[in-house]
């Protein structure tokens, strides 16, 4: 098991290098240099100042040297400073926003898994039943619905019309004057819409995947064996089929992480949540390249970590990988 993980980890090194290289290339492709942009904002900058800046960023060096320098800085955790007025280190800005995004995504994932797995199991075990057909319809529609549109409709319905739920931010203005219990309730109320809507697409996809994975497993010979033993259908499904059906789901979960993280841009922007997604969006609008690149890089690294987590889960479920 350890050697398997070691191998996977070793595989991540070239991936990380590739990620950094693509990030750097995208940055290098940008029209104009960072110095142009900085000096554009400050018309009083002298040519000497420009030169100083260019030297500082290594722009007078050939591209591969620039990449090396840049990589060196990245490894030390230096993602540069934001172009925005506050001029803060990119890493600080991300570190502030990241926990919120992670928290939301973990909630999303928990909600998706908590619903999709039972739905998938149920519709597979009772293929062509009413619930199964309803699930299929929901899956197709859920897959086709633009999440930002659903968010819009939900805001209209629950926020404006019914006034049940807050539609922006993570807490109310009078949060500080609330009791402890009230504060928790306020948080929860703020989370319902963003988390629920972000989970919708993933829920559709995963229930469908879980269903087909379960159907595939239920066709296997060992399920026949289990039935021939006289086990009840419940035991057959939950004891014998479920773990096998979860294996491909774990894989797909790892693969779906980039989509989930990317999706936070939309959810956080619409619901005005100060997470990494919204930071990314505002940085794109303001052409704050260091922040944009920093977040892109972090997003890729998060995906890698997610994949590693999926690998660990896989090993935990599948004995065939354990003793290698």
């Amino acid at each position, binding site marked *: 098991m350890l050697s398997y993980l070691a191998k996977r980890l070793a595989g991540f090194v070239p991936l990380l290098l590739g990620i950094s290289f693509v990030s750097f290339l995208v940055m290098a492709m940008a029209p104009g240099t960072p110095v142009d942009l900085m000096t554009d904002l400050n018309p009083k900058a002298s040519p000497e100042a420009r030169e100083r800046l260019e030297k500082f960023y290594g722009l007078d060096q050939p591209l591969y040297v620039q990449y090396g320098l840049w990589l060196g800085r990245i490894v030390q955790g230096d993602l540069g400073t934001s172009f925005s007025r506050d001029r803060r280190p990119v890493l600080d800005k991300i570190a502030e926003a990241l926990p919120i995004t992670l928290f939301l995504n973990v909630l999303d994932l928990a909600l998706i898994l908590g619903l999709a797995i039972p739905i998938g199991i149920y519709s597979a075990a009772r293929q062509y039943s009413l619930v199964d057909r309803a699930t299929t319809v929901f899956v197709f529609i859920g897959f086709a619905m633009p999440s930002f549109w659903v968010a819009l409709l939900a805001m209209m319905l629950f926020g404006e019309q019914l006034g049940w739920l807050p539609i922006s931010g993570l807490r109310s203005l009078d949060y500080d004057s609330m009791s402890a219990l009230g504060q928790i309730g306020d948080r929860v109320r703020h989370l319902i819409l963003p988390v629920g809507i972000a989970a919708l697409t993933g829920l559709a996809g995963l229930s469908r995947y879980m269903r087909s994975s379960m159907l595939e497993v239920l066709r296997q010979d060992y399920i026949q*064996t289990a*039935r021939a033993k*006289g*086990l009840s259908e419940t035991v057959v499904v939950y004891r014998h089929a479920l773990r*096998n059906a979860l294996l491909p789901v774990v894989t797909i979960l790892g693969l779906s992480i980039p989509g989930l993280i990317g999706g936070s841009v939309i959810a956080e922007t619409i619901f005005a949540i100060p997470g990494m997604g919204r930071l990314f969006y505002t940085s794109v609008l303001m052409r704050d390249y260091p922040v944009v690149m920093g977040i892109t890089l972090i997003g890729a690294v998060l995906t890698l970590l997610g994949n590693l987590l999926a690998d660990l889960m896989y090993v935990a479920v599948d004995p065939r990988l354990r003793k290698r």
Partner: protein
Amino acid sequence: MSKVSTVSDVSDVRGTNGKRLLDVRGLATAFDTSEGIVRAVDGVDFHVGEGETVALVGESGCGKSVTALSILRLVQAPAGRIVAGRIELAGVNLLELPEAEMRKVRGAKIAMIFQEPMTSLNPVLTVGYQIAEAVRLHRGLSKREAWKEAVRVLDLVEIPDAAERAAGYPHQLSGGMRQRVMIAMALSCDPRLLIADEPTTALDVTIQAQILELLDSLRARLGMALLLITHDLGVVAERAERVLVMYAGRVIEEGPVDRVFAEPHHPYTRGLLRSVPRLGRERAPLATIPGVVPKLNALPAGCRFRDRCDAAVAECASVDPALEPLGEGRRVACIVATRRGGLES
């Protein structure tokens, strides 16, 4: 060959006079397919006596496996279902049992082993667990006792280091070993009937003999009946007392193995036997049966075999022959053979 005759001598007595354990009457199992409803099993009659070994033979697709699954009511709904017939186990019609009662039959009174040992065991559960599970369910043993029992039956099927193997997973075992595990699992609850669906087809030739030998000796020791499904006529000759020949969803010939092999009545059985290569007769060209098995949803009128039959007469096109007794515990579904047999006796 001498061994065959001794085995079948005994079987004649038991097979024909012994108590009937399993009695299948008019069994029909249908499947919904994209091309309409197909009756994979279409009116099958046979019985298995206590402690008897009966072989069910036929080409692939003739309905052997579906018959076996039907006995255990494991044909998967909604695509497949049993549409007619009775399946009596010691006088109880299994088709009328509620599902919960049927589950007490599966594994406990009738056990089954399958063709593919590589895929018949659950890859994420330990071997011991998979056996102990059945023991706990049917014999009500505690977890620990059931585990001990699992180790005992693994030992019984001659798996070395049974205690250690029990804690391992199927992927650590070879195909032959996995089939032994399947046998152990099947025997763990002392069933009265074991259905073995092509138990050796997927195995190496050398392993095949071992597994068959094991099955045979355990059957004798435990006094259970064995319904052996196979397309290997050599296996039939060596292990079975009676043989049932299936063609296109029907049993078309039935009788003691030595009698049927010595003097097959149905033209299909004759063809089947002729197509088996034998040592010492290398010169003679191997016969084949002309044509192909008809599609089950496009069966010819009258006898299902007539298109391929070398003995067909005009009447075969209109009469769908039933399985008629011919004496000596033999039956055949062929009007030509019945007439000839009638004349002889």
